[in-house]
């Protein structure tokens, strides 16, 4: 009885799908488009303002689009502040931190997923517990530590910690992934005489590529946008990362009486662009990673 009734519903559903455009669909799409516009508006505004003239900045009512796009603004923005240095610093930090994160957290994940030793489960619990801690509580001692090492106002504090496992999030994600790979594979290789490092490097790591890509993409975006640590560790403008440099711009518009909002917006677009490009090209990995971490949590 129940199965035929279920069949009825399924048939009704598939009929619904075949019926074509319904009025509710129109309402639905209109709603989605309005929502999309609301969410995109600040970004579109940033983009449009970055191409305006000074005059257009203060026209009232503010025009939605510039009459003639001023691509020159980008050149001026780059020359007004050490933009190239900032981007260079950011690239350096992001690449080193991401590389360190992926390598060191995959090694730790390998240890948690494939070996048995005393204290493993306790250490794993501690690892997960660090996810709950706010950064503020470790930041002060870390700052003093790097101060004692004379590394304040250098880029080292921004990436060195990530060569020691970085954040538990990545270790957890990679461990969960490794657990899904059958251990028979490693055992076969071990019987053939491969060493553990070799099993890790030539067998497991290549199989983990999707999870590694996920970690790399998430780490890239987090590092690129990181604000708190550079704010604490860096003092000299030439050493800033792009996220910190942008906040430096905040005070500029008042200086010298020249409005600079359009340059600020041009700089913002340059700061957002790499993440957008990365997100669009690796969307699958990114979404997968977020989802994995949420479902297993």
């Amino acid at each position: 009885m129940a199965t035929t009734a279920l069949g009825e519903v399924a048939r009704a559903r598939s009929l619904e799908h075949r019926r074509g455009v319904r009025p509710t669909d129109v309402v639905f799409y209109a709603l989605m488009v309005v929502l999309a516009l609301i969410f995109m508006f600040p970004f579109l505004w940033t983009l449009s303002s970055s191409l305006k003239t000074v005059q257009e900045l203060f026209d009232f009512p503010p025009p939605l689009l510039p009459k003639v796009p001023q691509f020159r603004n980008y050149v001026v923005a780059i020359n007004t502040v050490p933009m190239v240095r900032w981007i260079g610093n950011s690239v350096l930090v992001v690449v080193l931190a991401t590389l360190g994160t992926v390598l060191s957290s995959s090694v730790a994940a390998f240890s948690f997923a494939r070996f048995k030793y005393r204290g493993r489960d306790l250490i794993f619990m501690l690892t997960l517990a660090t996810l709950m801690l706010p950064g503020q509580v470790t930041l002060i001692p870390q700052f003093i530590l790097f101060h004692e090492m004379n590394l304040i106002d250098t880029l080292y504090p921004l990436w060195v910690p990530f060569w020691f496992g970085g954040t538990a999030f990545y270790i957890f994600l990679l461990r969960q992934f490794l657990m899904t790979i059958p251990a028979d594979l490693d055992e076969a290789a071990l019987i053939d005489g491969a060493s553990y490092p070799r099993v890790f490097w030539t067998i497991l790591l290549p199989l983990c590529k999707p999870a590694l890509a996920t970690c790399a993409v998430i780490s890239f975006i987090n590092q690129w946008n990181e604000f708190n640590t550079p704010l604490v560790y860096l003092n000299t403008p030439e050493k800033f990362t792009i996220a910190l440099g942008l906040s430096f711009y905040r005070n500029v518009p008042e200086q010298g009486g020249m409005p600079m909002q359009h340059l600020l917006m041009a700089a913002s677009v340059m700061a957002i662009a790499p993440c957008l490009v990365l997100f669009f090209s690796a969307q699958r990995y990114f979404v997968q990673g977020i989802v994995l971490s949420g479902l297993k949590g």
Partner: protein
Amino acid sequence: MAVAVSAPRARSLPWYAGIVGASTPLQAKKALWGYLFLLPWAVGLVVFWLGPILASFAFSFLQYDMMSAPIFVGLDNFKKAFFGDDLFWPSLGRTFQYSLVVVPVGLGGALGLAILLNRGVRGTAFFRTCFFLPSLTPAVALALVWTWLMHPQVGPINTALGYVGINGPQWLTDKNWALWSLMIITLWNTFGGNPMLIFLAGLQGVPDTLLDAAEIDGAGRWAKFRNVILPMISPTLLFNLILGIIGALKVFTIAYVATNGGPAYATWFLALHIYNEAFKYFRMGYGSALAWIFVIVLLIFTFIQMQLSKRWVYYAGEAD
């Protein structure tokens, strides 16, 4: 038989086998490799997590400015926070107020968007990307563009409000509106972010058979949502809730860049207070005490939620 098993073990079981918890030579060797692979993270865990946590606890009993030698002051830092610091209680209250609005509204919005996306119509991927875009943007860039959008005179928001005859508020520069303005910015930024994606995955995990069965039993849209979908996604909801509260209580960058705690301390959050005490005035001892108070508040919140969750979170895998 017994001899065959115990003979090789007696011959070559290494001295450390007991320490690493191994009962055969192979297990012992494997355990050593396990420790070796763990080493980088073990160092990181001690140097960058456990060590700093303990150090921070010790600092909270000191007066330390990094120039002169630290002085032991007992509980003075905590007494100062609770009784002698005019900014502490208001900053804590403000942080709660902010979280109390941002977390429930934010999660409700994220769930709403996820439900819309879950209809799986054509163009879903495009809309998902549009919704998600703001959370990819550096918080600094967000704060900067919103400062302009909310500009009282030339900002597009007040201009638009002017067209419909509303005299828009002063937003970030008004001490009665600044906190609400930051909430709006945060909400707009988080509706389509990670929580939405996690909800979406949760919704996709609700089996169609359950929904069909509910439909046969005559359940309407609301009844289906309330009695089938909500219980099925409750673990996801708990996860988002815990991370959401931690994230909201940590609010820093948006306030630092958009208002720097002002006007008249209207957006002076706890994290901003800690940052100023520690890294502006170099009161490392006091800053650590504040950070510890913060951790304890967070732990209490998380604990309460875990306790409460036993009443409303349903795990499909459990036989209950």
